[in-house]
């Protein structure tokens, strides 16, 4: 996103805080385009409405884990990170999905899910924070909304969020259905764009570091996934190749100043909170292979 004349814009603040380099074509963007892209993302309430429906679809296919203590802990860690997210209108909610697959999902407005399989392959809270930070970044940057073309043109007959919310006709229901189907397709099949994934990695790492965690959390987690879950990882099309992600993350890490000290891992608290998961049948199986 280019820097415009409205520094109060949430998106611009995000750019300034995170320190993203300006794109080469920033100067090319005219104020009418900048204004369009800055207006729509402020509608967090509408995004949450859509995100809630998408989250319901996710939970229709993968149930939440029946592990209240672990879910409570997840929300504690996630909410701590969300304090630093450039998404002042989002209300973040976190949940553990009862799935062996290694993945995490975010829907617009702040609904974030991590699979039990992913948690079982983490070693500490820094790694969890990095994964949650990555998903928070997807929400903060409106990646889903942008991918679906809902971030602008709110007067669109089929594409605008406002119309999706306000409509009552058959075409409205069809538009919602299509939007949700496309959203699920992005989450489970096609994935975000490479640029969006790498942006989420970068911002997620920054959020974790800002919250006091070690900066290598995501790198360590991805390396472990790549090492022990190569086949599963290759099947997951929602991310760029591990190699590219790791290269980019390590490059970003080199330029990231961590202060004070080396950052926290909070491994003990992490193991205690997720003990119930680690002691489950699935957990035992994975504990044997990866922990």
């Amino acid at each position, binding site marked *: 996103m*280019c820097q*415009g*004349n409205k520094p109060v814009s949430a998106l611009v603040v995000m750019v300034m805080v995170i320190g993203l380099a*300006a*794109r*080469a*074509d*920033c*100067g*090319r*963007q*005219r*104020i*009418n*385009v*900048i*204004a*369009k892209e800055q207006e729509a993302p402020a509608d967090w309430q509408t995004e949450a409405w859509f995100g809630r429906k998408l989250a319901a679809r996710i939970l229709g296919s993968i149930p939440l884990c029946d592990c209240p203590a672990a879910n409570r802990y997840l929300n504690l860690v996630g909410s701590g990170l969300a304090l630093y997210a450039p998404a002042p209108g989002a209300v973040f909610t976190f949940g553990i999905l009862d799935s062996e697959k290694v993945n995490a999902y975010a829907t617009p407005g702040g609904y974030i899910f991590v699979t039990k399989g992913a948690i079982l392959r983490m070693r500490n809270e820094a790694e969890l924070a990095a994964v949650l930070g990555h998903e928070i970044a997807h929400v903060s940057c409106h990646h889903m909304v942008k991918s679906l*073309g809902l971030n*602008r*043109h*709110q*007067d*669109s007959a089929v*594409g*605008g969020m406002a119309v999706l919310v306000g409509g009552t006709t058959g075409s409205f229901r069809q538009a919602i259905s299509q939007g949700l189907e496309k959203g699920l397709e992005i989450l489970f099949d096609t994935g975000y764009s490479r640029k969006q994934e790498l942006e989420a990695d970068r911002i997620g790492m920054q959020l974790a570091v800002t919250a006091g965690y070690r900066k290598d959390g995501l790198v360590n987690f991805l390396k472990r996934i790549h090492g022990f879950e190569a086949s599963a990882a290759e099947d997951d099309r929602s991310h760029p190749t591990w190699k590219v992600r790791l290269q980019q993350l390590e490059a970003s890490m080199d330029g990231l100043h961590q202060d004070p000290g080396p950052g926290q891992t909070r491994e003990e608290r992490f193991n205690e909170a997720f003990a119930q998961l680690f002691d489950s049948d699935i957990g035992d199986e994975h504990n044997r292979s990866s922990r």
Partner: protein
Amino acid sequence: MSITAVQGEDGFADDQHYVNVLVGSRAASLGGAYTALADDPSGCYYNPAGIALAPYQSFSASMNVFQRSLKTYEHALADTEGNLHDWEQESSTLLPNFFGVIKNFGKGVLGISYAVPDAINRRQRQSFRNIQSNIAGNPVENFTIDINDSDRTFLFGPSYAVRLSDNLSLGGTLYVYYRDREVVRNQLLQFEQGQHYWINYYETRQDWGLRPILGLIWEPHQKLALGLTAAKTFVTSGKLKQQTTFRDSSADSPYIIDGISYDFSDTDTLYFDSTTTHPSDDQPLSLTLGASYFVSPRLLATMDLSFHQAEDQKEATWNLAAGAEYYLTESIALRLGLYSDRANTPELSSNATNQAEHVDIYGASFGVAVFSQQSSLSLGFGYARGEGEAQIVSDSLTIQDVTIEDLTIYLAAGYSF
């Protein structure tokens, strides 16, 4: 013996200039200085690399709702009292001149566009009384001329552009080229002593070809963009039909044409000739270098320098265009452009006959665009004027001063999705 005669074919169509219609709304308002911008569907025409930089998928359409061109050959004819009369040709058209759509496709952006870069609909209907002739003591009592020319060039085809890196994009357009020309000219001269000269000339021409355009945009700095395009039209097949009918009862002796004698003192004699040929005249290579400077998100300045190679009877020439755009608000933009449209013919010599006219034209354009969330509407005005020289009388050393004035009002709409 006539005072005038049908000119060669180059005298009818405006082959002598390269900027006959400014295509696209934003580009037209910027005087056509669009090579380094080109980030909307009209980039397909100006620089296909630009469509890779478009902020949205979109389509746009523009049309000249009013275009009037007036060409005046000053003091072309003299009457028996020594008064000089101008020769005036008027052209007016109302046509859609651009439609284009761009859409993300694969790793790049795909475009489809239709453009009409040249359109003339020229009319001349004038009558003159008591015009001097070169037959002593036998002036032309009544001279009537009726010209009805139309000449349009259509381009239609796909474009594709990719971003090679954050600041470099490359694109190409392959237009199908079609030119459709019709020339109708009637002249009747009635001499004081009763003779007459009448000629009817009718011509149709259709050319098919390809016009590839290759473009590049490099943004060495976020406030600066440089663009380069190369374009050339290859005519693959042409069909030219020419038909001439005339009689000249003022002739002192029979006409000998292709070995055949035509004695017009016989009232039954009429000359008629019809030919069909297949010319395939390629158009010259055009290279355009553009630069745009993005002063701020509200203001930009842009400039193009184009060079047109010499080919056949056309001389090498160059043109310059410059424009500026300023956003009064986030939804209203003002645009201003200046451009040249220099002739590709040599300057006239005082000791030659049947020379092509030479008029360098300079124009200005102004436009207002209003944006809503998804759509835009533009209204623009263009004015161009040129002064030069011509020889409208066949086989005569006389040179006329020529003035061209061109006024255009155009309307355009765009929609992004």
